[in-house]
């Protein structure tokens, strides 16, 4: 395998890792506050549809993203009501939200667009286009030179190839997702809010005794989770692909959940685990590369199942131990 092919695979990995990363960090906020969220998938799916629909009507990807965030936050509020206010079962609430999103998106899509549960294709400014960083070889250079882009990159030096192929040319949401990692780390480990958020996931009674509202903290975590899932969904339908199709999240919310466990609920580890799972997804699209590399054929079904298998192995504690926040999935009852 030559250097350029490697770069192309890594480039695809980054694209595919972005929605995982956003959803994974979303889950991180929620679970660190003690609210387990298996409804990441549903929130992403709802956001993907409403982003695509709003972007189609307005012709503006940013308006689309706001609509997506709105839909995702609405579902997050339902989850908050069920698991914080009414102290219900957080897992059951998450399951309900996943199904609600799976059904509602198709129902509304059919009612609005009558295209069998999809939105019309998005073009132009209704999508988040690639950003060409300065000095990188991008489509505009290729147009100016009148030669195909792939040829120009292939002729460039390795450093320029690395920069143009892997670093440059992503949509703005990819860079935003990467920036969210240090931001989350800073917020959780260097601010008062973050300390309290982590404390409420470990020992809510202590936080309550200190005079800080458990309910408020958990709601804010659940709402941040909603916003990040909203961006993840918007990325799926307005950046990675051009429009919404039925069930387009395809289990990504659960892979993000797996990545979160793999990362042991830490933001920087989350980045690495999402990139790893993104790489698996990228290789699933290019099975020929593994065949060339190792000399034998690898089952693509195995590659697809690898994130789940790895998560089970991690959960089983055979490679390190993944210990969730202590108070996760337990509703807080102020007085007994």
């Amino acid at each position, binding site marked *: 395998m030559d250097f350029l092919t490697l770069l192309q695979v890594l480039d695809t990995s980054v694209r595919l890792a972005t929605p995982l990363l956003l959803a994974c960090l979303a889950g991180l906020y929620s679970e660190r506050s003690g609210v387990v969220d298996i409804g990441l998938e549903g929130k992403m799916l709802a956001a993907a549809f409403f982003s695509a629909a709003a972007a189609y009507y307005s012709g503006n990807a940013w308006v689309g993203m706001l609509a997506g965030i709105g839909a995702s936050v609405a579902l997050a509020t339902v989850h908050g009501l*069920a698991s914080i206010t*009414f102290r219900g079962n*957080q897992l059951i609430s998450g*399951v309900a939200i996943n199904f609600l999103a799976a*059904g509602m998106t198709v129902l509304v899509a059919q009612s609005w667009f009558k295209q069998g549960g999809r939105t019309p294709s998005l073009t132009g400014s209704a999508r988040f286009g690639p950003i060409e960083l300065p000095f990188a070889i991008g489509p505009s250079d290729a147009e100016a030179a009148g030669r195909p882009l792939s040829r120009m990159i292939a002729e460039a030096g390795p450093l320029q190839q690395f920069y143009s192929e892997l670093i440059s040319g992503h949509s703005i949401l990819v860079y935003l997702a990467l920036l969210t990692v240090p931001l989350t780390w800073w917020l959780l480990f260097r601010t008062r809010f973050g300390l309290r958020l982590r404390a409420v996931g470990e020992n809510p009674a202590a936080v309550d005794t200190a005079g800080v509202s458990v309910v408020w903290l958990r709601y804010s975590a659940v709402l941040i989770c909603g916003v990040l899932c909203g961006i993840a969904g918007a990325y799926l339908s307005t950046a990675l692909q051009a429009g919404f199709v039925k069930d387009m999240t395809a289990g990504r919310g659960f892979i993000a959940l797996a990545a979160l466990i793999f990362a042991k609920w830490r933001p920087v580890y989350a980045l690495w685990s999402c990139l790893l799972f993104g790489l698996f997804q990228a290789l699933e699209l290019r099975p020929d590369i593994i065949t060339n590399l190792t000399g034998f054929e690898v089952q693509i079904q195995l590659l697809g*199942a690898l994130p789940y298998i790895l998560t089970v192995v991690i*959960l*089983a504690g055979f490679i390190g131990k993944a210990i969730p926040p202590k108070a996760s999935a337990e509703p807080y009852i102020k007085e007994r």
Partner: protein
Amino acid sequence: MDKMPKWADIVLIPLISLFLAAFFSALVILAIGESPIEALKLMIDGALMRSSGWGYTLYYATNFLFTGLAVSVAFHARLFNIGGEGQAMIGGLGVALVCLYVPWPHWSLAILGASVGAACFGALWALIPAYLQAKRGSHIVITTIMFNFIAAALLNYVLVELLRPVGAMDPASAKFAAATHLPSFQDMFSTAETPMFRGAPANVTFFLALAACVFVWVLIWRTRLGYEIRAFGQSETGAKYAGISPVKITVVAMLISGGLAGMMSVNTTMGETERLILNSTEGAGFIGIAVALMGRNHPFGVFLAAILFGFLYQGGAELALWTSIPRELIVVIQALVILFTGALDNMVREPVEKIFIAMRRRNT
């Protein structure tokens, strides 16, 4: 003293939750510009007013009986088995292997063999998450979710690479032998003059599902094991003190749960398609969650809830056929039922409890 009488807990609360779910479903139908009354009429006509409609309703109900019982047995041990879908898929593999490689002389023997195959494979798929929960403390909800995806990948691999007949294009096994054909309701109840259940897939497996209901009732309320499962579900420390092994109960409850989920495939794979196909479960494993929640984990409640969801499924198919409402309406209704009977249970329960307490005060 209880906050409210038992009948209110068993009948009133589920009815209020169901009413709320129905109310919001009606709002959804209104919002997409259709009439909820018309929709309900169509659903009833299509699912209950003809014998073939009943044939479909009961066929779907058979699936939901098995998966609903599976979820409720696990719930009694306070384990949330969200992996019914995967266990049913692997159960289907068991059915297919038994039907393909054993020369059965008669369907009555074949259905026994297939049930054993399905239950063993389904239980096996639940064993690993159960063991990890019991011994290593890995959360069973997460592991069973992961096992759903692993099951889908495994089934895909087996169908594409191993069981697919040479030269066939679609990922499915070969057709089972004719001797394994299960009598459908049409075969059983039609007479020469009056054909009944024409073309409907309901088959003898329905009675197997009813037997499973009785089995679960006896198991949970009339055996020592059932007592241990319930005790463990009520209080793990209390059960431990009484000498009940948490490891044993976790593993056994999940084995039974997985076995029941797996047996759903006897209905779909042997009774309907008569070969193993991808996605024969069609989400029935997840509907089991809604069915168990609505049925309050009691076999009779599960039976009623399974019939209701069978009706919704068949009615939903009719709606999709005659109106512009897609089948996904059922997924929305299912979500609302899970939301109101499961997650928002306290929202319904607390006001009702308050009313009962107020009434009691006035009387004394």
